[in-house]
């Protein structure tokens, strides 16, 4: 009786521990089907970021399955009643060396492999082309709890009567390296466009350049990703990506409207 109970306990515990990696890996494989995976990529550098995610995903999955498998096996195998004593050892120097060195190599590889994507997104801004940090397409101005976009006048300055200001909706051209300058009027906010794989906090008192190149026309969610007060959850915006010509037309129309008013 006691023996049976003990066996049952061993089985239950083993199954529990086993369930986590099994179900875990399964959900990851199924997640896409359930819409619990990355949204589509519509930026030039989005793919490189996902690639790095998958690189780490593989390494992590192997480690995860490996370590959990060992754990589960040991727990099942060595929990059976046994009058003899455990293997008596205080450790093994060679083993320690091996399992320090291998992860070390892996991790260094990971670290190095990250650098390029990061510098592309956050450090190497377009130098030629229509828009540069010095000559941005627009200024995005975050404040509790809305986004404002300012398109400069023909001379490229952001003050004066000819500046176009649009709330919530950001319109940008397709297949163009767009640079914007991110500002905050009051508290911290964060400029998050899931489909661009782009996120950058907006900090009051700072003027942070951000760049992206949208590859698909359409409208995408712009989400505030930094707690900014009670309205944080509904500080939504939209990014409309238009084919180049349509964008130029749109901008021209806006300008015209501007003059029409006065």
């Amino acid at each position, binding site marked *: 009786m*006691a023996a049976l*109970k*003990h066996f049952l*306990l061993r089985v239950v515990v083993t199954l529990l521990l086993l369930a986590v990696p099994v179900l875990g890996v399964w959900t990851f494989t199924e997640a896409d089907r359930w819409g619990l995976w990355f949204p589509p990529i519509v930026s030039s550098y989005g793919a490189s970021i996902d690639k790095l995610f998958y690189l780490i995903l593989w390494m992590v999955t192997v480690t995860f399955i490996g370590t959990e498998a060992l754990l589960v096996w040991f727990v099942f195998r060595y929990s059976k*009643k046994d009058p003899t004593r455990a293997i008596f050892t205080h450790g093994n120097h060679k083993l320690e060396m091996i399992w320090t060195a291998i992860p070390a190599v892996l991790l260094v590889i990971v670290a190095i492999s990250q650098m390029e994507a990061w510098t592309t997104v956050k450090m190497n801004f377009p130098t030629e082309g229509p828009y540069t940090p010095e000559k941005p397409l627009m200024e995005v101005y975050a404040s509790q709890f809305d986004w404002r976009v300012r398109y400069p006048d023909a001379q490229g300055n952001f003050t004066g009567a000819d500046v176009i200001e649009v709330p919530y909706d950001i319109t940008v051209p397709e297949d163009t390296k767009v640079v914007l300058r991110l500002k905050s009027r009051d508290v911290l906010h964060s400029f998050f466009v899931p489909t661009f794989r782009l996120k950058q906090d907006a900090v009051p008192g700072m003027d942070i350049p951000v760049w992206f190149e949208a590859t698909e026309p359409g409208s995408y969610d712009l989400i505030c990703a930094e707690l900014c007060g009670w309205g944080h959850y509904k500080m939504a915006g939209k990014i409309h990506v238009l084919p180049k010509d349509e964008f130029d037309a749109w901008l021209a129309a806006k300008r015209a409207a501007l003059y029409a008013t006065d």
Partner: protein
Amino acid sequence: MSHALAAYDPAVDAPAPHHPIYDYDSGPPVERQKFAIWLFLATEIMFFSGLIGAYIVLRSAAANWPDPSERLAVDITAANTFILIMSSWTMVKAVFAAKKGEQGKTARWLLATILIGSAFVGVQVYEYIELYHHGALPHVDIFWSTFYAMTGFHGTHVVVGVIWNIWVLQRVLRGKYTAKNNIGVELAGLYWHFVDLVWVLLFTIVYLF
């Protein structure tokens, strides 16, 4: 459930009725209190590093930082700094006297330290009042914000030090310390020296640079 625990056996498990308390010392050869006070001072160092670090960051980020000499009475504070350094010296004397077991001397040097310390605080309070009348308060600009935070927290440390010294003094007067046992004086001394040291640092970066 499956592996029974060792059961209770009064023969071995009952506590011995009357036993001495075994209190061991595993070194290093320094009193527990002194060891602890050094740990405590380490935390104090980190605390002021936080303040000073913030000051340095803000100052280097600022477009233009006012010249302290235009806003603060540097000469008075320089004198005040000298006074405080003197008090470190009197404290050393007090500790020496305590080590020799000369209670009277200890008391006198401690009293000197207390008086000088209070004088320092007095001058600082006077400075604050003057500034207050000139409307120079933390909310005016970042210079004053940092100024009050740093000098204020140091000031409170000096006050604490003075109170601590007074407490030690009354113990000296009640003959609590001997040539052998005078750790209490020494601890107060360590804290006092630390507070002085911090001030020298603060004075240099806040008033001189």
